[in-house]
């Protein structure tokens, strides 16, 4: 059914369609996937509840106090960041919809106002991070610029044990496939160097004994990741009577 409400279209709901060799997806005759919820699944909620940080998820009764006070949602105006909604999607197991926010979830700045205000004692901040972890471990989410930045940041930090801003910027630009003009970089870099706020190249800080520390850290991270990945339930089966 062609739709007129463009606001309803989000990239992953557009059906790609070709008519007689002409790609008509995403234009005036955009098609929407069915918006009907056809199944309920306790799998995600059970997994989240089983994690030490996620066990309060089942208390949530969707009052919206968390979202109302959320500094991202309300103060910063990032409407799609809605902790109440993330919790609900996890509770009813609506994975397809939840996945749209796989990256958004990580924009939480952990101010913990939600935890402070929740009338039911839901540790909202921990719960939504656990939901984010579930999505990350169960895979399939498209990487967003924020995800790429996180990756660059982690690599950078693991490299020397301390942040090198210039290197971080270069890595991120490479991952993003874009390039800031050299003149602009030079101007910015020199200003920061002069004011003593940039430590890179010969001036870079180092963490003493980092190589040994790094091995331990990397081993631990790999182990943690493998353990958590193993705990994630299998991908959803088509709806139907359970065996």
């Amino acid at each position, binding site marked *: 059914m062609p739709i007129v409400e463009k606001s309803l279209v989000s990239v992953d709901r557009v059906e790609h369609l070709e008519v007689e060799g002409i790609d008509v997806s995403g234009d005036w005759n955009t098609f929407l996937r069915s918006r009907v919820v056809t199944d309920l699944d306790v799998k995600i*909620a059970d997994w989240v509840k089983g994690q030490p940080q996620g066990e309060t998820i089942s208390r949530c009764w969707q009052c919206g106090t968390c979202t109302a006070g959320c500094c991202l949602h309300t103060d910063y105006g990032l409407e799609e960041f809605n902790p109440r909604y993330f919790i609900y999607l996890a509770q009813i197991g*609506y994975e397809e919809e939840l996945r749209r926010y796989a990256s958004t979830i990580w924009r939480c700045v952990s101010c913990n106002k939600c935890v402070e205000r929740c009338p039911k004692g839901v540790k909202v901040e921990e719960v939504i991070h656990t939901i984010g972890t579930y999505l990350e471990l169960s895979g399939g989410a498209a990487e967003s610029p924020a995800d790429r930045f996180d990756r660059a940041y982690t690599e950078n930090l693991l490299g020397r044990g301390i942040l090198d801003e210039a290197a971080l910027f270069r890595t991120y630009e490479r991952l993003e496939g874009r390039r800031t003009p050299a003149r602009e970089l030079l101007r910015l870099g020199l200003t920061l160097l002069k004011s003593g706020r940039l430590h890179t190249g010969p001036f870079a800080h180092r963490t003493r004994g980092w190589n040994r520390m790094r091995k331990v850290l990397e081993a631990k991270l790999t182990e943690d990741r493998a353990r958590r990945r193993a705990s994630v339930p299998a991908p959803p089966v088509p709806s*139907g009577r359970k065996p």
Partner: protein
Amino acid sequence: MNPILVLGGGPAGLSAASELAALGAPTLLVERESYLGGNPVRWHYSLLAPDLRPAEEVIGALLERVEGDARIERRLSTTLTKAELGSHGYRVTLATADASETRDVAAVVLATGFDHFDSRRKFEYGYGRFPDVVDFKELEGMLHDNKLVRPSDGQRPHRIAWVLCVGSRDLQVGNPWCCRLGCVVSIKQAVEVRQKHPEVDAYIYYMDIRTYGLWEDLYWKSMQEYGIKFIRGRIGAVTLAEGGSRLLATGEDTILSRPTEVPFDMIVLASGMEASAGTKQVAELFGVPVGPEGFLTPRLTDLNPVDSGLPGVFLAGAATGPKAIPDAVTEGMGAALRAYQYARD
């Protein structure tokens, strides 16, 4: 003193009769069914909310008080067919299937109770057509007998939905009032199911959850400890799915603002409470005012909730509106006291 007549042998009537006997008044307890105990006994209620005590234990204690007391004359399978106001009290006619007699009574306690809403009247839910759409009271019976199976094939259901407010808060069936117990009993049933069968997924479709007062505790526990899920939205229709082997609940998830069509193995309707046939009948016999909802109306709901305003006629229990057993028991006590005072003076 002529005996005081208690009409109805449910929780309110049993409570009133035992209190009257304790006050030393001769008591005549009349029940239209062949047994005492009212709806809880009739439908084999399982555990009672919120303490999750077996109904048999609670009603059993009330029955014991009444049955062990020689001052209480019990008449089963008996109905009231006539009531005339005399100089002090009433002259009433009691009828059984084959006989009738006239008695003088000093005062009357009407504890004629409620009937469960007939869920067939919400035809869109398929009750009476689809065997796996069951009623509140039928699930109570299943839980009581420890036989949680689908009526259609005798299999254990994997996923059950409760639909709240069936025949309550609904102008389409002419019942705009809240049944007060649908929420807590549905939650109690879901908890009971999960206690016995943790592998069964339980979903409750609601508009509001009205577990008022201290009952809220059971609601919270049902989420935290028993993992019961609550979906906001009223089911619009139930149809068959998957070749008729499952039920499809069509509704709107009003939190998502999306239509939902979810398959279930069993659907439980939280059917509401209506004034019983007996309640309507005694209202006419005694001329007790009836509210727009069909329940008896006390003269002053705040100051004197058990007084009808008619001389010597007192009210108790669900005859005056949907009520939980503890409230019915309390009102039975209150009505007994007021009736005793009236008869004594």
